[in-house]
């Protein structure tokens, strides 16, 4: 999400010529199926001398790549609603770019930030494709674990139990996102 905020800043505010580019790039990712991302990552990271393949990190990177587009949309849309004078007032006050981001932009975008994060978290939680391609035995994602229990070991009971827990967590979080108070808070900030 922090990466998404930076990309949003690049495309919305910075005024750099190529500022829109990373933003469009993340959108392209939406059209790529998860399985292709996974394969691509395997090729890239097995051929690079980075000790990433087979660790939890490759799954994290894959998830970030996949969900950046969405989180970026959320951040850009909210960012557009902040009046640029709010940031300029901070610059005039003598604050550095970083301080402005941390003390002004981030707190104002906070509700959107949290919602975006929750949304991504839920989706990452139920993910199977990416994890299945990238997991190794000693660090699995829940989705991949369920798949294994069901397909390989035939342990339907355990699989179903995990599924129920997963669903209740997702459901709970979804309800949290949809809570009207959060939208109220977001509206108040404007």
């Amino acid at each position, binding site marked *: 999400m922090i990466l998404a905020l930076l990309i949003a800043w690049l495309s919305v505010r910075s005024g750099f010529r190529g500022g829109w580019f990373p933003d469009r790039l993340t959108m392209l990712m939406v059209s790529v199926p998860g399985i292709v991302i996974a394969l691509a990552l395997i090729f890239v990271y097995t051929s690079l001398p980075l000790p990433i393949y087979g660790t939890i990190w490759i799954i994290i990177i894959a998830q970030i790549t996949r969900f950046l587009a969405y989180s970026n949309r959320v951040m850009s849309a909210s960012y557009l609603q902040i009046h640029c004078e709010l940031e300029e007032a901070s610059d005039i*006050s*003598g*604050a*550095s770019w970083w301080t402005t981001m941390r003390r*002004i932009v981030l707190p104002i975008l906070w509700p959107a930030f949290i919602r975006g994060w929750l949304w991504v978290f839920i989706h990452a939680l139920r993910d199977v494709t990416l994890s299945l391609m990238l997991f190794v035995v000693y660090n699995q994602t829940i989705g991949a674990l369920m798949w294994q229990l069901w397909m390989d070991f035939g342990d339907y009971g355990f699989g179903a139990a995990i599924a129920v827990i997963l669903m209740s967590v997702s459901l709970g979080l979804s309800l949290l996102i949809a809570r009207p108070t959060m939208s109220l808070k977001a509206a108040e900030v404007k």
Partner: protein
Amino acid sequence: MILLSLRLINKTFIVERGEVHAVCDVSLDIEEGEFFTLLGPSGCGKSTTLRCIAGLETPTSGEISLGGGLVYSSARGSVVPVYQRDIGMVFQSYAIWPHMNVFENVAYPLKYGSSNRMKKEEIRQRVSDSLSLVHLEGMENRSATLLSGGQQQRVALARALVRNPKLLLLDEPLSNLDAKLREEMRTELCELVHRLGITAVYVTHDQLEALVMSDRIAVMHEGRLVQIANSHDIYNRPVNAFVAGFIGATNFLDGRFKRDSNKGTCGVTETPIGTLFCSAGAEFNDGQVVKIALRPETIQVEDSKDKVPSSPGKTMNVFEGDIEILDFHGDSLVIRVRVGEELIQVKTDPDQQLHVGQHVYLVVSQDHCQAVPF
């Protein structure tokens, strides 16, 4: 001493369909302690000029120095970034941060400004001093979102003043307030700035605000400076028809100028309603086509020929016509009088007994007939 100086500042924006030349060759020198106003219609480049001074916008070319040091120079390629310029600014939208209370808003420049770290106690003291300057004593813990427009305005001002900046920039700070509050704040702001002896650059499109508040006014039109002068001269000695027309209501009469050889600034002009005695700068030549600017309130209305005064030493112009329109404004009576082909607007005493269709005599002294270039 000159605090701020702009040399040939230009700013061009690249937009989808070509370029916008927002500021053209603007040069200014602003004295320390001066209340200086940029005045002009919307879109004439006032805000852009102010933002260049602040460093929020980088000019396309030119030079800006502040307090003796160069802060921008296109020739030498040097730019001092916004946060290192010793400036306070009040924005049109106030730009009060909604997630902070009043104290946090005002303390922000002290806490996060580039100057040295300050003790908590000192910050508290300075915030409270700053708040009492704008008459918001004890409001530290109010939430910023719960303030009225006028209060937000004051918080923005307190925030701009809290670091004791050399220069205060104000971009139409009163335009979002209702009429009554605007008038109050105008007086208060003006008094505060003069009391603190701070140098202020004030942007407005409201000519009355500019005339009331400023030591000097720079009138802008389409990105260029047209006239820099004090309020009195801007009003009474406009350099062209744009300034005359923008500052207050004005009647214009077209004519051909002829200088009166005995008197330096005097002349006569042939206009559609007869020959007018007028005053004109030395730059006008005999035979030149000019406009005569006539302020509605400088014209006196009389209902009979006997009452027309003849004051010696001052050459008076007199013309006659019929009242066509009559508007009662409470504190004044605005009438339009048909004189020949022209409709002359006159602002007069509301107690005067006048009615539509009445035949009247208009009297105006030569001093108040100002020749401006066509």
